């Protein structure tokens, strides 16, 4: 597969990563990198090891071997808050917003490690411009919102940490098609505003449409990588790995 890519500096690099839950190996010898300004997508079916990879990047799991480097610094093995501090924020799978807090309080917590009040205010405005629906619901308890709105909040909350790298774990999960489009359009806008994105998706075709580069995982192994457009256009690949039509 061709590996022509943007010629920008590597931001996140995962090398030879192996992660195991006890005796069960979930991810084996994974290599991937995210370059500045890219949307990189990590796709694969259920149980392929996508979430395990993300959890290891965000410090919730420790790798068995291999390492993760972010902007030249090894971050594997560091606790979660250190990784957020380094500039990686995540919108987790299943949204996991704080249900009994208002939308505003959720956003406020997203900026937990931010000190500059002026900058927090500006980021908040930016997020509310990206998701006007959140502005309408600003005082509502997040748990009473619809799934789509909660997903917007989860992405917006991660944005509040002013990440250099934004990780989105299954943002389309359980959403009506109209809303999936809304979310994906917004992801492109976020990239345009200068944030690098690592997008993990089961909805491979949708992800490939907006991504620059893609990695395909299958049962813990890297099966395939390449330019997203090429992967999407190749019918053989689509049939074999993406459940394409």
């Amino acid at each position: 597969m061709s590996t022509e890519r943007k010629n920008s500096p590597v931001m996140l690099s995962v090398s030879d990563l192996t992660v195991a839950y006890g005796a069960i190996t979930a991810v084996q010898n994974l290599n991937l990198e995210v370059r500045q300004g890219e949307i990189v997508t990590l796709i694969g079916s259920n149980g392929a090891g996508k979430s395990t990879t993300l959890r290891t990047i965000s410090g919730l799991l420790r790798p068995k071997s291999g390492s993760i480097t972010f902007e030249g610094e090894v971050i594997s093995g560091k606790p979660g808050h250190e990784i957020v501090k380094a500039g990686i924020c995540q919108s987790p799978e299943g949204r996991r917003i704080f249900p009994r807090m208002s939308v505003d309080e959720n956003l406020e917590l997203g900026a937990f490690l931010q000190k500059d009040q002026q900058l927090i205010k500006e980021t908040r405005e930016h997020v509310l411009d990206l998701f006007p629906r959140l502005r309408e619901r600003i005082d509502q308890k997040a748990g009473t919102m619809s799934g789509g709105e909660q997903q917007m909040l989860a992405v917006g909350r991660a944005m509040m940490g002013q990440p250099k790298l934004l990780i989105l774990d299954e943002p389309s999960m359980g959403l009506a098609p109209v809303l999936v489009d809304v979310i994906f359009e917004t992801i492109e806008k976020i990239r345009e505003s200068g944030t690098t994105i690592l997008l993990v998706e089961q909805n491979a075709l949708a992800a490939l449409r907006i991504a620059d580069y893609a990695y395909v995982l299958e049962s813990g192994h890297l099966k395939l990588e390449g330019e997203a457009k090429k992967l999407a256009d190749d019918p053989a690949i689509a049939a074999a790995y993406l459940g394409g039509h």
Partner: protein
Amino acid sequence: MAETTKAAAPAHTENSNKKWAIGFLTVVLAIYAINKFYIPTAPAQVKTFFNAWFSLTSMGEIMIYILMALGLNIVVGYAGLLDLGYVAFWALGGYVAGWLMSGQFDQWQINFFGNPPAGLPNGIHLNFLLVLVLGGVFTAIWGVIIGAPTLRLKSDYLALVTLGFGEIIPQIMVNGEDIGGFNLTNGTKGINPVDNIKLFGHEFGPFQLADKFLIYASLAGLMIFFSLRLRDGRLGRAWLAIREDELAASMMGVPLMRTKLASYAVGATAGGVGGVAFATLIGGVYAERFNFQVSIIILSMVVLGGMGNVWGVLVGATLLAWVNNTGLVQFGNIINSATGKNIDFPSFNFLIFGVLLILMMLYRREGFLPEARVRLIMHEEEFSDVAVVTDDIEVEGVHHHEHN
């Protein structure tokens, strides 16, 4: 519109905080004034009535329970960590008072602005305020010691470990009269007398109950203040985030261990200060008072009152403490004398608390006075994705009135 409600919300809670604070202050001062100025000259019947229903000892005890319930509320209500062994901190605080304000260690003779009984200078006699601080610090350290290895556990296991801790500490106290020949706790006989409080040249003996009540009320008041301040601060938000969703909190950059340990330490401090206060209230430290039931009573105060809400916990602590130390006995006496039976009502206290807890869990899980955020979510309608999608269609020209 959103902006106005946003501005109104904090002002509203601030207002209600102010009202509650004034209410608390008024009640405390009223109790003090009645007992200080009215009761001594009141007719005998009035005296008996107040003594039976609102004795100053029971009022002081209520204040100490408020202090401790608010401490546990930090752990359970704010941070969402179940602690079934809170009595351990109470016991540790009590023994700090026993060790540092009595003749327990009569092999030494230390007096630092303390108040040894006349003619009995042996033992360690430190100033009450200093002992309060030391008791708080000592239990905070124990909170961290217990928390550091256990807080990595998931909630159910954490509850079990705290339960064990709550059993172990009192057992050590019961059996601590001969630790390699050293009498640490005086065993089941307990440590007594604990020195009278002496502040700024004033001695508060067993009969200055009104003044002592004011001291304990001040401690409770301080705890109310700290609880409110902590909740609105950065640490309070981190606790709430952990309570709501630990994993998500970690993804926001909340340092999990440090934040949880802080809740344990603050909760333990309140327990320790409560222990010191209680030792001076009853003038002694007795191992058998520190049993599992105390942990459960304090937890019930938090749950019944409304986890997380300072004023709810205050009401819960007041009610349960009063029913436990006065109400049951008095109502029991009335019922006994009316029916001519001889039922031991106080022995039913756990039956009553148990039934009460079950009823609360069935019909009012959020407590008497729930935290605003809990109350709100129980009364707000849920929006479905259908409504959201129709909203999107609305943009494209089709009109719907699903919600507005």
